[in-house]
């Protein structure tokens, strides 16, 4: 039995916006795998909840008229992994969210909930950063879109305007981002299932038509800082470079110029830096190979 003051159930996006405006103190609950756990811990005990879980219109993956991949915010991780559009264009996202928690958690957990928490360890977050996803928010003033890097403000805080009744309704991956692009995600954990990432690293590349050089490389981390982050110094090393092991090693070391992991009981800064470099090396190599490149 959860210690909640009241539960408001939204049946549509508009309904959710209305409820949000009516109950500004209320917490939005999507799948609940984080919110309910916090409520049980006492952190959110006695609060009101607005459940958006039953809004089926916010589920599913499609390609919209602008050729963006559109992922409804309530789409569960397991449905993302199994979706043919995801598998065809951005399989790495399906692979990343297939490493969240456990099969049951992947059935209840939603990509919207995962990102709205604003936590750096979310398995979807580094890949969404590396693919420059766009977050779609719907409120009383209509739809607002913003790049995912701007959506994350600080640890646990994202740019959602509660006063405008906003909820996150979709995540979009633009065509320019996914076209001819191949990636790889590595999750580092202390065991092989039911794990929260000690570090997550997502890399993707687009190779030149002759597959000799990297046209565009993007790398993002989870848990390398308070929010998920890109590593532009490393990307600069890779962009325009030939596919050599030396380049990969230089790329991997360059991530240290950007990331800023902290010391905590879960892992030391030194350890996280060490693993981050190794992950960058392995994820870039795998991405290149997936793109059809051969490392010299």
């Amino acid at each position, binding site marked *: *039995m959860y*210690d909640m003051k009241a539960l408001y159930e939204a049946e549509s996006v508009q309904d959710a916006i209305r409820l949000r405006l009516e109950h500004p103190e209320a917490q939005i609950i999507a799948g609940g795998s984080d919110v309910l756990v916090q409520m049980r811990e006492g952190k959110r005990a006695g609060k009101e909840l607005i459940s958006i879980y039953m809004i089926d219109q916010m589920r599913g993956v499609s390609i919209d008229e602008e050729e963006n991949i559109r992922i409804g915010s309530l789409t569960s991780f397991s449905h993302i992994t199994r979706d043919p559009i995801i598998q065809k264009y951005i399989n790495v996202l399906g692979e990343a969210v297939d490493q969240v928690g456990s099969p049951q958690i992947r059935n209840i957990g939603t990509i919207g909930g995962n990102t709205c928490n604003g936590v750096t360890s979310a398995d979807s977050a580094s890949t969404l950063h590396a693919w420059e996803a766009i977050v779609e928010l719907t409120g009383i003033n209509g739809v607002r879109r913003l790049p995912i890097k701007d959506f994350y403000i600080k640890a646990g805080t994202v740019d959602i305007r509660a006063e405008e009744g906003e909820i996150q309704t979709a995540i979009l991956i633009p065509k320019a981002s996914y076209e001819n692009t191949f990636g790889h995600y590595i999750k580092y954990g202390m*065991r*092989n*299932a039911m794990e929260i990432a000690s570090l997550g690293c997502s890399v993707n590349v687009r190779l030149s038509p002759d597959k000799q050089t990297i046209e565009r490389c993007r790398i993002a981390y989870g848990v390398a800082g308070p929010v998920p982050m890109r590593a532009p110094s490393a990307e600069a090393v890779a962009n325009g470079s030939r596919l050599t092991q030396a380049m990969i090693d230089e790329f991997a070391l360059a991530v240290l110029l950007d990331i800023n992991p902290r010391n905590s*009981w879960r892992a030391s800064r*030194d350890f996280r*830096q060490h693993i981050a470099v190794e992950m960058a090396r392995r994820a870039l190599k795998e991405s290149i190979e997936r793109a059809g490149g051969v490392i010299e």
Partner: protein
Amino acid sequence: MQKVGKSEIRVDAYDKATGRTKYYEDRMPQEALYVRIKHAEKAHAIVKSVDCAEALAVPGVVKVLTCFDVPDIPFPTAGHPWSMDPGHQDVADRKLLNTHVRYWGDDVAVVIAEDEVAANRGVRALKVEYEELPFVLDVQKAMEPGAPQLHEAFPNNILKHTSSRLGDYAAAIQEEGLIKVEGWYDTPTVQHAHIENHGCFAYMENGRITVVSSTQIPHIIRRVVGQALGRPWADIQIIKPYIGGGFGNKQDALYEPLCAWCTTQVGGRPVRIDCAREETFVSNRVRHAIRFHIVSWLRKDGTFAARKVECFSNQGAYASHGHSIVAKAMGSFPQHYPCPNMECDAWTVYTNRPAAGAMRGYGMPQASFADESNIDECALAVGMDPVEFRKLNIMPQGFHDNFSGNTNYYDTYRECMAKGAEIIDYARKRKEYEHQTGNIRKGIGVATFWYNTAVYPISLETSSNRMQLNLDGTVTMQCGETEIGQGADTAYAQMTAEAVGLASYKDVHVVSCQDTDITPTGLGAYASRQTYVAGFSIRQTAGLLRDKILQYAREVTRQSVDCMDIIDGNIVRKADGMILMSLKELAMTAQYNSVHSEHITAESTYTIRNNAYSFGCTFAEVEVDLAMCKAQVTRIVNVHDCGKLINPALAEAQVHGGMSMAIGYGLSEQLIFDEKTGRPLNNNLLDYKLSTFMDHPRLECSFIENPEPTSPFGTKALGEPPACSGAPAIRNAILQATGVAINHNPINPHVLYAELRKAGLIHDTWLDEEGK
């Protein structure tokens, strides 16, 4: 037909496969009030006051009771049999709720409420004022002069110190040309993590208190509840339903005494205490973290001249099982690898960690980790293969221990190692994995363990049971040695069928749930004793039942008792094998005979004054990814000699579970505490790294079935042994793979990172530049 030695289906399998099995919470009275405990949020403090006003104002809260309200009766909690010798009784060092809180998670107050939410709100609304005291988490720091003191009666926090001496250590180490192999070995605080948390409910009936509890030891709990409440023990009734695992945590009085007291405070209404997982990790019991210091003096031929062992056992805040655990650990050293000159010392020391109690293996996983690590280094030091070194030094056949009276009747250790080595192809792989380069390194390692069955002669070892002949010729059997998931009831059914002479183990109804008002007194499930000790009383009671059956059969069949036998559920004339009558016919006749009616039953107690060695080994193969700081077990094999197997399939299943626990102990499990506050940091199943389905290779096991001469069924301990040698085998495999000797478990990525860097196997150039 033999009834034992067969892989019969568990007697409780159908109910468990259909979800019908009732655990304590499934028997809960709907009207039970919720008791929630306010746990200390200080590692060491004196409670000055508890402000209950806000909690009492929460709608639904019925009562708040604090550490200032409880009876002034310190009580012990260990699940040991009572001792008539006051000097041998367990240490009574806690009250139902404590004003002097000694660890983060200690019990300060309770809120009793009509529902869960109100109870939780009530607990959150309590305001506890503390006078903080300095605290200490490390076992050796707790022994230092000036360290924070936990219990007045135990200066320097030393609960107990014992030692043993063999030969003359000081003189022996003077021998010329000896090689010294010395190490400090550290084992972590871990928790049982049975999937059903501990919980119980209590109510009063006719002035007596009944507690239904998830426990391994109902009869012992009855006594402890009586002690804690200052009531006659017979005033208490404990009922033990099916339980979702125990592994030793539930071999302790957990919250039964508090629950029993709470019902007395609300007029005997039913009250429930359900531990949350977070409480299970901290406010129940944990495994003792033991630190070992071992000095081995070797001759060049690989024999020992002398050994010195010091053990420092971290007891945590309360005595619980106390010194028994490290005493057992220390006791293994002179027997496991006999050596003429030994100095052994063991200290059990209070610290401000959760109280440590019994856990599967009872000191042996710790001792095995330390001893088997040191042994591998000894082998390296004299250039011998680790298996050969062990063969040379390990307890030989015929070894006799005067204290326990145990004899090593067979060449068990060598037989187990030979079999394990063959299964895993040890010799070839050991050679193949020498001199590796590259990022992925493979290794293979071995470890053995020492164990003995049951608790004689340290404590009373007794078992009672009752058998009744039913009208259909089946037998109902009851005993106090509990089913906790391990399959004891099935073994009892098989042994009873065998001993009485029934057609099948299905003709035995084992009353699984113990009720101390009804069940013959037994001690419960611990020390891997159930099958061994129950075997004695089953054989004896079955003998009594058979006598009564045959006496009655004499009246009916006019054959002399000596001429008859009971075979496969029939009374048979021995000479010609003629079936005289079935047990069903006999039971009906006996019950409804208008001249001499008899309900045929038998009951007896057997005092066991034996003990039995139970040995085995683990071979493990690992793959280490140096750059990723990860070690993965790729193959693991356990071989055990636990005597004759009563049920091979269940035995194998027991071994699997122990191996899994050992893999966790070796690589991932550890309860960690904030050094600044003493707060536990990972007391949940996400952050405490129990092995998942994806963290194991296939678990392989095999047995050597040397019949145990002291046992009526040739059997001995198996429940705990499988958890003992896995971790050091993994550690030794990592040693071969990397050349790095890691002397503390779990060997998780953090540890590998530090150790591999120290050994120069990974290079973080940027850190070197920073001069770190």
